[in-house]
């Protein structure tokens, strides 16, 4: 019995979601309480496990038994350090976001029960990914987080942009998921099992090309979920959802699921499975995403979009680290990033609410005076993000840069450049929004956020500062036997200090002390291109969707209309409905006809059975 305690990680949020949806859809307070309680309970359970509670291996439930054992679908849970420490990030940030939501959604007219049910179903799905002991279960969780993300991005579904963004996120993810599914099936074929525990050591006897194909297909899933180039387009749009959702799903946890999955596979399959080609592709995709997103972020005016692109760029770092076979560094950065990026998003949420739902930084200004505590927390997050020595982000970024320098210096220099850009755009954001004087009415009336918002911010701010230090990181970074390696003053340290200084100085020179009322860099072709997200979205819309896809769609439409719909479906529907009509004719209600037909049928029966041998 006790060994099945970890199943509560899945059952509690699922139960909360079901109750919210079914019973308490009209009383949002109860719904919110239930969701918060389930998040708190899972967090407590997780802390208990990290503190040494050991209940042995949970039972494996055979969901769909198939005669051939390896094809059966099993549901099993892993409680190793990688899973449990990841759960701490998920449930910890999850709980804080739940609490923050109370304040953020106060006065919102939409159905809050639906919102909290969405959060709980997300917690369920995310736990499913983290705890899964096989790829099939990972995939179930994978699709479920996609679904809950769809629900939450589109929470304000009456807004066309939110509904579109939800659709875009879902469909873009589907593209990646196709690859992921193929990858899972390839894994089943190549490794003979979907179970992580059974994959170890099997990579040695498998042809490199096959391994590369398998790993890259699985990587497709991560490209979609972790919003890597070229499928990154959905994440900035996903900011249409409520800000706490952006913090939880689109910054701290779900988007990191791709990285988590890759690291999980890297451990299960062994580094041998990640061939050089596969690694090169993964690292390059990560580096390209990091660089592109950081560039675009420099010219965004919406506070949440700046943070969204910054998330993309940081995810790029992590994926790059995975490609460099430095899973440890990737998970370290995932872990610190989760805390400080959640902090930044929640801080942004507090700012947005206090400025009466204004998201344009050029319409803020002077907020440091009006909401000092919130801004201070936000600055802590910024310091961690731009990797000021002593803050958590610094340690994890150093770890990645070290790994890059060791494996492939090109990626090191890309990383350093991205670090400079990061410093630039975050300093720009802070200068414009918090310094100077208010540029719009909303910002003039801003005031400190309420307690339910401030408390999570403070906790997260503390984590953003201290989570990188060895004493706490060693215990909490989701990686078995993680050790924060003492950092030595060397080339990487000087380079990152240099890029930090470069970014800071450049931003200060351009934006001064926030006195300007418009962006001095705007107005030229480069800025326009960056503002238009380098025309990637437009390229997808016009060329891929409007052009290529439209042509294919026309051809398929023809096949569909003429052959499938016309001949097969409508033809067979016509035939069957004729048959149905004929049957109804027989079923005319006349008793005599009924007895006659029954007798006839009986005769056939008797002839078949008794007169036929």
């Amino acid at each position, binding site marked *: 019995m006790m060994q099945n305690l970890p199943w509560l990680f899945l059952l509690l949020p699922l139960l909360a979601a079901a109750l919210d949806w*079914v019973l308490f*859809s009209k009383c949002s307070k109860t719904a919110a309480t239930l969701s918060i309680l389930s998040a708190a309970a899972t967090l407590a359970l997780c802390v208990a496990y990290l503190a040494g509670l050991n209940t042995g291996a949970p039972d494996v*439930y*055979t*969901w*769909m*038994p198939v005669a051939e054992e390896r094809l059966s679908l099993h549901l099993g849970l892993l409680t190793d350090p990688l899973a449990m420490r990841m759960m701490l990030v998920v449930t910890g940030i999850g709980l804080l976001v739940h609490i923050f939501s109370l304040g953020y959604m106060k006065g919102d007219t939409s159905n809050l029960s639906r919102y909290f049910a969405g959060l709980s179903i997300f917690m369920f799905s995310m736990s499913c990914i983290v705890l899964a002991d096989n790829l099939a279960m990972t995939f179930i969780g994978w699709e479920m987080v996609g679904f809950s993300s769809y629900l939450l991005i589109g929470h304000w579904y009456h807004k066309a942009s939110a509904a579109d963004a939800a659709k875009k996120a879902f469909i873009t993810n589907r593209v990646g998921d196709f690859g992921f599914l193929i990858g899972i099936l390839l894994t089943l074929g190549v490794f003979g099992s979907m179970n992580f525990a059974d994959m170890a050591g099997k990579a040695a006897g498998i042809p490199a090309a096959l391994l590369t194909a398998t790993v890259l297909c699985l990587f497709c899933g991560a490209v979609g979920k972790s919003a890597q180039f070229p499928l990154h387009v959905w994440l900035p749009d996903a900011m249409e959802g409520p800000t706490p959702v952006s913090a939880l799903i689109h910054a701290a946890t779900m988007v990191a699921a791709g990285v988590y999955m890759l690291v999980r596979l890297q451990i299960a399959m062994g580094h041998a499975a990640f061939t050089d080609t596969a690694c090169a592709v993964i690292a390059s995709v990560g580096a390209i995403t990091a660089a592109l997103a950081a560039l675009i972020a420099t010219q965004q005016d919406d506070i949440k979009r700046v943070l969204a692109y910054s998330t993309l760029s940081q995810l790029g770092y992590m994926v790059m680290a995975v490609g460099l076979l430095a899973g440890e560094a990737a998970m370290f950065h995932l872990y610190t990033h989760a805390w400080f990026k959640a902090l930044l998003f929640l801080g942004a949420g507090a700012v947005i609410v206090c400025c009466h739902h204004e998201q344009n930084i050029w319409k803020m200004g002077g907020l440091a005076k009006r909401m000092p505590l919130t801004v201070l927390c936000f600055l802590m997050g910024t310091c961690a993000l731009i990797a000021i020595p002593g803050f958590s982000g610094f340690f994890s970024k150093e770890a990645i840069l070290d790994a890059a320098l060791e494996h492939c210096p090109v990626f090191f220099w890309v990383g350093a450049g991205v670090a400079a850009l990061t410093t630039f755009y975050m300093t720009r954001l802070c200068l414009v929004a918090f310094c100077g004087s208010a540029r719009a009415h909303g910002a003039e009336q801003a005031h400190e956020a309420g307690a339910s918002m401030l408390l999570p911010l403070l906790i997260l701010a503390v984590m953003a500062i201290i989570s990188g230090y060895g004493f706490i990181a060693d215990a909490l970074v989701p990686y078995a036997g993680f050790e924060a390696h003492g950092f030595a003053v060397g080339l990487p340290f000087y380079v990152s200090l240099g890029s930090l200084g470069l970014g800071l100085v450049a931003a200060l020179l351009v934006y001064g002390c926030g006195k300007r009322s418009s962006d001095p860099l705007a107005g030229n072709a480069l800025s326009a291109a960056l503002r238009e997200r380098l025309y990637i979205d437009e390229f997808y819309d016009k060329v891929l969707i409007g052009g290529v896809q439209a042509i294919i769609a026309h051809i398929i439409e023809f096949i569909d209309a003429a052959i499938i719909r016309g001949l097969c479906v409508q033809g067979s*529907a016509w035939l*069957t*409905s004729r*048959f*149905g*009509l004929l*049957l*109804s004719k027989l*079923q005319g*209600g006349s*008793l005599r006809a*009924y*007895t006659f*037909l*029954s007798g*006839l*049928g*009986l005769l*056939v*029966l*008797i002839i*078949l*059975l*008794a*007169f*036929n*041998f």
Partner: protein
Amino acid sequence: MEEHISNLVSADYTWCQFCPTFALVILAALLLLTDAFLPKLPKRSLAIVAALGCLGTAGYLIADSGAPLTLLGVIACGATALSIMLAFDYKKITCDSVAGGDCEEGTGEFYTLPLVACAGILCLLQARDLILLFVSLEVVTLSSYVLAGYFRRNQGSVEAGIKYLILGAMSTGLLVFGAAWYFGTTGSFLLSFDTVQRAISGGTAASNAVVGGFLMANALLFAGAFFKVGAVPMHLWIPDVYQGAPTPVSTFLAVASKTAGFAVLLILIAPWMPFIIPGITVARLFVTVFAVVAAATLLIGNLGALTQNNAKRLLGYSSIGQAGFILVFFITPSAATPVMTAGYLLAYALATTAVFYAIAMVRTQRGSEEIAAFRGLGKTNPRTAFLIVVALASLAGVPLTLGFIAKLNSFVVLVNSMSLWGNLLILLPIMILCAAAGFYYYFKIIRAMYWDAPRPEDSPLQVPPTTGIVLSLCAIGLIVLGTLPLLLNW
């Protein structure tokens, strides 16, 4: 002489086996007496006691269980209880259609007769010879005749009652005729392995005529069972009677009575099982007959449903179609057949009961049983609509509902038996076509609920508490067992 006869029937029944039957009969008798001598007592109390009695018996059977046939008893008891509850949930209609107005007079039997029928079903499950089988089956049938025509002020109900009576009498006649042939060719009423073996090997007379006569006897007996389960060619009564009979009675007929039919079929084929192996001529005939019946039942039930607009009639065809999927288990019977049948019947019972409850609710408040009357429920009663969707989805066989697992089993059984009986391959496309057709006609109701806008005069339906609870429990059961199928231990 007396001893001789008792040998012909069976000597190994014990009183103990019939305890649940007696309990229900005694309860029914008590309730009838109460109804007669305490006319002032509200009939609702009778209904509640009757329903609780059924549920209690079901609980006893679950605890006592072991044999797969007992599972059928549990389903039958549960379904009877639910039909009784449905009847008193819509007491007003019952009163209005029986005595007119709000007068409760003469409605007492409507709540107690299902108990008698249920007792008959429980007795039937214990039968291992044709006499007891026939008598207990008649107990079920006779009470059903009365129930189907109970709403004497409602023309549809009267018509249904008469049609059911006449066609039912025919099937009873076939059953008796079959029993006579059975006795004539084997010299025994016992449904046992020995009897079948003696007959098939030619018996003492060692002639083909004996085997032929024995097979004919079985054809007639099967036909009697086919009437109850609604298999072709004895299915013709179903759409008319389900549509005309009072909705609680339709529910009873569709679930409990059908369960009884499958129990009869299971009892009849049990002695056959060892003989259904390739190479035996009789086995080939048996498989052919059941394959033909299953195919015809599938086609007629599912394709006939396509053009229906009346929800109750649609469920009638659906019950024929679902019986077709269950009959697939019987083509090559094995030790697993009773369990599979019970599992499928459970899925069918939960979903069908839920839909009948929904129909009763819509019928009383919107005044129509047409599918169109479900219009806009998705808007006006989103939660109830969702529960109905679950039930319909399960009937259609959508994954993550119990109906999917049940249908999957049906396909798996067919595919497995194809390795021995290659010709059964023909059945596969028929099953696929019929499963697809199911999606079309069950989703017609879903389409009406979500795609048709409610009319201005449509107010949200008032969901009576019993209906709400039953719908929720059925939907939860379907989803939970559908996602965790191993709970059932198939």
